[in-house]
């Protein structure tokens, strides 16, 4: 557990930088975290992030297939939006825990 300052606010994150309390998240924080990955957030990014947050908060297990079938962008598009971590990086930016699924 560690504290990280994002968009001027201190938030709780785990050793890998994932939020431990998704309610602390704001859009501004996502923008700041995205910069660490060299990602400029677009409307599509926000749609994916919103989808992840909604489904996580509804208690669902997230898989890349489920996100790819959400009607926002296909799986290839997800890799382009979040290079090197279509589910991992997007989850981190969405302020939810690291996905616990193997797919």
């Amino acid at each position, binding site marked *: 557990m560690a504290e990280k300052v994002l968009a001027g606010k201190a938030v709780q994150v785990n050793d890998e930088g994932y939020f431990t309390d998704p309610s602390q998240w704001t859009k501004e924080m996502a923008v700041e975290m995205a910069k660490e990955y060299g990602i400029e957030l677009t409307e599509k990014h926000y749609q994916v992030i919103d989808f992840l947050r909604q489904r996580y908060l509804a208690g669902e*297990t997230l*898989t*890349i*297939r*489920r996100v*790819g079938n959400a009607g926002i962008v*296909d*799986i*290839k598009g997800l*890799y382009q939006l979040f*290079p*090197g*971590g*279509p*589910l*991992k990086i997007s989850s981190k930016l969405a302020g939810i825990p690291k996905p616990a*699924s*193997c*797919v």
Partner: protein
Amino acid sequence: MSKTDEKPLKKVCIICAKGTIEDVYATLVMANGAVMEGIEAKVFFTFFGLDAITKSQMNKLHTGTVGNPAMRMPGGLPFPTILGILPGVEAGVSAMMISQMARLDIPPVDEFLEMITAGGGEIYACKLAMDMFKLKQEDLWDGVNGVLTVGDFYGKCGGENTQIIFT
């Protein structure tokens, strides 16, 4: 060596030589898991593993019900091998395996291969096994990146922090 000194894995080259549900899915899960972590993945299907990328077979894989001591009945009781030889049992067990995986959002083989290639993973067929089973390129799934000799495949497995995995 502490964890922070470890250099992260960059590439996995996975070889699948068997065509049962469990062998093929182990391969696909590992390849997909790699690309999702930003790790390059190249998969080489050979011998019976070719079924996984052969159009007419890929979505009809079975799991063997004979000679598998880890096989259990639903509920956990041992599965007697003698049951496994009865007609229809293998098909039933296989359908059950697929449906259990579908519940975990694990897709059919063709869709799984598409997920892997969408992430930049590459799929190859073994030339020797193709010749042996008299298969042609047009018999294979359309997304196959090529038919290679073993030497060609090794040629793609270079670079530091690369691992070859034989499922």
